[in-house]
């Protein structure tokens, strides 16, 4: 099977509050930055993938690309990991040579962004919205009480996730929040959806990122200023459109399934992974991810994080950009998790971990709705 690589990876010039840039322009700016990073031009790109709004047709047209392969998989914030997985298959099948995956979202400023969908006759409109839910903070939070009861995880351990990620973002000048916090700071912050407090909830920002995915042969024939990052294994899974219908509110089948497939394809186990990115919309999501993927046993994730294993200097550096809790979170954070894994594997991260040769990225889509996993590696992983 031919080797597929990430040849270009870049984010928008700035992240945070960007009221002067539309959703579309966030896609275009990150796409141009990724092309520049790869040393390629629009004429090199023949495949494009992005979520449904504004959509790959609009993005390709605005850039001046006429793709012969298009993917509009739109399953929440993990979509960009799905796109990478699908791009790998397309490149191996000969359906595309070089694929551009773009993300841009005016999550905070809502410039050129579609309105929140609130159809009264949708499933959520009938069976969730009538109960006063207000998007992710009041839905994503629902499993936490059950998770704590079933696994023995404490509220202090939940707060430790936010504490650990601030240790990373304190080393990252691009992170929105850089000041270190204590468990008390987290627990004493404003209650949002008890038991979750403000500092256990992700940011809401504007920004974007893009990737150029291609074959190793093509990348090497063109040359690049940056080390190539191999896509060693991928997986995907979807479960429920409504969090209230999770089969088990204390574990995510989709995390387990997508990661098992990705590790199998990479011929690796969790012990082969040097660096981990788990989509952290809220503080409990990394705990689910650590347990469901088998990095730790059932009920062990809280203590694992509290003991510093995922912090700087720990055995399993996790969310090293500061994550959605402290780095940035546009609403569909998955692209930023991939970007940080690429930076770590290139040796270009702000809070660089020594000797990273493999990185696993777990994306979450919607409120525990879908997941995709990428196992990435650099030359040293070969």
């Amino acid at each position, binding site marked *: 099977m031919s080797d597929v690589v990430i040849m270009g990876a870049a984010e928008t010039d700035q992240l945070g509050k960007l009221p002067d840039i539309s959703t579309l322009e966030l896609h275009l700016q990150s796409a141009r930055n990724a092309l520049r990073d790869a040393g390629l031009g629009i004429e090199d790109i023949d495949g494009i993938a992005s979520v449904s709004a504004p959509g790959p047709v609009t993005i390709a047209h605005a850039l001046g690309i006429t793709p012969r392969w298009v993917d509009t998989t739109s399953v929440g914030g993990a979509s960009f990991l799905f796109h990478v997985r699908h791009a790998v298959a397309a490149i191996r099948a000969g359906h595309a040579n070089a694929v551009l995956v773009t993300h841009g979202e005016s999550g905070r400023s809502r410039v050129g962004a579609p309105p929140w969908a*609130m159809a*009264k*006759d949708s*499933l959520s*409109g*009938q*069976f*969730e*919205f*009538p*109960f*006063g*839910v*207000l998007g992710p*903070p*009041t839905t994503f*939070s*629902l*499993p*936490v*009480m*059950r998770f704590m*009861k079933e696994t023995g995880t404490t509220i202090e351990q939940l707060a430790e996730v936010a504490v650990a990620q601030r240790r990373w973002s304190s080393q990252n000048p691009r992170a929105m929040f850089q000041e270190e916090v204590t468990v008390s700071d987290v627990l004493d912050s*404003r*209650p*949002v*959806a*008890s*038991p*979750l407090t403000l500092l256990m909830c992700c940011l809401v920002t504007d920004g974007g990122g893009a990737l150029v995915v291609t074959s190793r042969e093509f990348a090497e024939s063109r040359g690049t200023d940056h080390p190539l990052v191999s896509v060693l294994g991928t997986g995907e899974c979807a479960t429920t459109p*409504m969090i*209230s*219908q999770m089969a088990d*509110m204390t574990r995510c089948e989709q995390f387990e399934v997508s990661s098992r497939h990705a590790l199998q394809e990479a011929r690796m186990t969790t012990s082969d992974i040097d660096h981990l990115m788990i989509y952290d919309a809220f503080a409990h999501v990394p705990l689910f991810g650590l347990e469901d993927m088998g990095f730790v046993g059932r009920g062990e994730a809280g203590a694992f994080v509290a003991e510093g294993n995922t912090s700087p200097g720990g055995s399993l550096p996790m969310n090293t950009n500061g994550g959605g809790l402290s780095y940035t979170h546009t609403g569909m954070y998955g692209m930023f998790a991939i970007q940080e894994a690429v930076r770590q594997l290139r040796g270009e991260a702000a809070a660089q971990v020594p000797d990273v040769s493999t990185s696993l990225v777990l994306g979450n889509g919607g409120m525990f709705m879908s997941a995709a996993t990428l196992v990435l590696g650099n030359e040293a992983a070969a």
Partner: protein
Amino acid sequence: MSTPPKFVPQATPETQPYWDGTAARELRIQQCVPEQHTYFYPRTSCPVCGTEEVKWVTASGRAQLHTYVISHRPAPGFTPPYVIAVVELEEGPRMMTNLVGVEPDPEHLELDMDLVVDFEARGDDVLVPVFRPADSEAAA
């Protein structure tokens, strides 16, 4: 000052019997005929075995508190703090709801506590199922 109304759900043809049920203060759920798999939300085939041979049954209205959050942010028609919960019906399926008739305080909200269904208006002519502690006086 008038507050904006709570979100009003709208039936589709497939879910209409459910909403006809709540209007009659009954919680109707579905069951497949061959295997008696009971499920929620309403749909035209059984998600366990795939059969399209399904029927409506009336749930007992008894449930247990599976998990919850206390929302501290204002939502249309709701005065924070209020409780958003997932309950497990006696028949097995789970559903999202609100808890009523109980203080929105963890001290009064023990997981797996017994609940009973009640119905609350959304808009002019829709009732949605909400739940209250089984040991509280039936009211409303």
